[in-house]
């Protein structure tokens, strides 16, 4: 990235490997294979990819719920993996908060809503009496909930309301970065947009930086400034969200875009063709982001190519990518054919 300002949060070459098999087995599963992500202040970055691509592992490493195998996590330019080697400090936890996927599982059913918010406040900057009460009401107002709900139990709330409580809990400690792991995928269609709009307004009003993890490209496009596409533990393409969806350069991104149901496409809908494309992407053994079975492109270190206009910061990681004169749409496809022929 060629930005002047220091990113508020950045990962460098982050690797997470899980041991596989039984005791003494040496096999490992590489969930993150050297991920570089950077978040500028007040930016919303969407991390998209299918199940198992390592999106959530990345979020869990950044919130220090998992210990990464190697790499760096920089908060304001300081590598917290060296300064806080084993546990995240309370200060780090205050600055980086997480909102989980399942609002039905992330709120303890035996406590009232006020408990969740009070606890977060109590742990980080204690308030008492009327100051505490004011703060609670303010938080509820921020997420568009009625203050009367503070006395409710989670089961009395709808899914959308619960997710708003989860967001309020994250906000209670005045975080700088919020990681939201599929915050809308468990919610009903009627309230999804509301939660996305809330996240957007928090960024606009409070300047909170967000990492929005999702498999829904359409909502990523709606909410995020930039999109990073993740596949098999690696970022394969990233760029401005409108640009990347208009001109996907990596075959995997193309596949994801083509998988989004689009009513405009009713006539030419051919899912089996797209399923075949997916199989090709997934079956390639050597390179996690290789689009062609017969020509595995992973030989050495993957490289990053700039796509199109450099001002858009649109990058793709693939050996087969060659910028064309047109500098954009499907530049990769002819190149693959060239290699094959």
């Amino acid at each position: 990235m060629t930005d002047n300002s220091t990113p508020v949060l950045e990962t460098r070459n982050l690797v997470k490997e899980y041991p596989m098999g039984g005791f003494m087995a040496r096999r490992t599963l590489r969930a993150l294979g050297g991920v570089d992500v950077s978040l500028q202040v007040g930016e919303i970055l969407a991390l998209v990819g299918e199940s198992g691509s390592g999106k959530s592992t990345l979020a869990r490493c950044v919130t220090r719920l998992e210990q990464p195998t190697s790499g760096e996590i920089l908060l304001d330019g300081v590598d917290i993996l060296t300064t806080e080697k084993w546990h995240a400090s309370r200060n780090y936890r205050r600055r980086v908060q997480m909102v989980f996927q399942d609002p039905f599982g992330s709120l303890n059913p035996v406590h009232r809503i006020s408990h969740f918010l009070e606890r977060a406040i109590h742990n980080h900057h204690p308030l008492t009496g009327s100051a505490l009460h004011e703060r609670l009401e303010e938080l509820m107002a921020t997420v568009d909930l009625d203050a009367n709900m503070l006395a409710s139990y989670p089961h009395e709330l709808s899914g959308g309301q619960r997710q708003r409580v989860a967001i309020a809990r994250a906000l209670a400690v005045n975080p700088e970065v919020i990681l939201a792991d599929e915050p809308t995928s468990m919610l009903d269609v009627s309230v999804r947009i509301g939660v996305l709009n809330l996240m957007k307004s928090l960024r606009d009003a409070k300047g909170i930086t967000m990492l929005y993890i999702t498999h829904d490209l359409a909502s990523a496009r709606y909410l995020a400034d930039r999109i990073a596409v993740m596949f098999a533990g690696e970022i394969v393409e990233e760029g401005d969200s409108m640009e990347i969806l208009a001109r996907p350069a990596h075959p995997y991104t193309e596949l994801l875009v083509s998988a989004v149901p689009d009513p405009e496409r009713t006539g030419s809908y051919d899912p089996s063709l797209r399923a075949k494309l997916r199989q090709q992407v997934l079956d390639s053994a050597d390179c996690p982001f290789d689009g062609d079975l017969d020509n595995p492109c992973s030989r050495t270190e993957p490289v990053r190519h700039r796509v199109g206009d450099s001002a858009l910061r649109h990058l793709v990681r693939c050996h087969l990518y060659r910028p064309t004169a047109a500098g954009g749409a499907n530049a990769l496809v002819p190149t693959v054919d060239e290699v094959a022929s």
Partner: protein
Amino acid sequence: MSSDRLLEIDNLTVQYRGDVRTTTAVDHVSFGISPGEIFGLAGESGCGKSTIANTILRLLKYPAEVASGTIRFDGRDVLALNGEELRQFRWREVAMVFQSAMNSLNPVITIGEQMRDIFTAHLDLTRRAADARCAELLELVQIDRNRLKAFPHQLSGGMRQRVVIAMAVALRPRMLILDEPTTALDVVVQQEIMAEIKALQAELGFSVLFITHDMSLMVELSHQMAVMYAGRIVEQGPAATLHRQPAHAYTRALMNAFPPITGPRVPLRGLGEGVRLTRVGDLQPVGHNHWSAAVSHEDRERLTPHAAGSEGGPR
């Protein structure tokens, strides 16, 4: 509506009776599905979509009851079937893929044993013959036959979903009910599963009642579709027509509840307070084969974009 329909639902009303109050989950709903047709039923949670599906298979339990209306399948009155007739009807005539179907497999039994049950219970096949049929069935949904010995947790979400679909088509039913078959899956797997269903439908020729809240997916797949709100159908017609010229404000709102993948990025409103209807009128024809419910005057006032309420507030 003509009588060559495979399934004909007429004026169906289903109520959940309580001591204090009675909730009408399905309110005078009528529609029909022709042989080989994919019929989509859209709407948000709680609008009565799944209740309709359960009523067709006679799965309603106390306190739900059918207050009025008829369901005819191939001319037979489904609501009047007795125990043995019902056993014959379920799965052989109409099969269903349930919501979160991937979790509907028994975790402590191999999938082979679960699939075998269908054949031993309905066709009285021997275990050996049933196992052979199960293996064929798995291959039909492109899963290796060795996986019959696998337990559900050893399969991925998409594979489990395929197993459930294979089980639903095992007896070559004439109609398949899909209740949100892909909600828990990510986009790529969702698209694969839908391709699978389409291919199976082309091969086996069954009708489909497809229930979802994802309008884009539904428009892509369905021939005919209906949009439900609070137990009423607000609009019904060919899927393409509904998408191009939605007549009812609620249909438009539901379509806008998902951000589009193309076009300019515009702020959207959720289906919160802004699009509550006070009452839904009867369906009126608005075009060829296209019906829309009348909107009352005060609803129309509230639903005009500039007069709309807060975005996506709590329901």
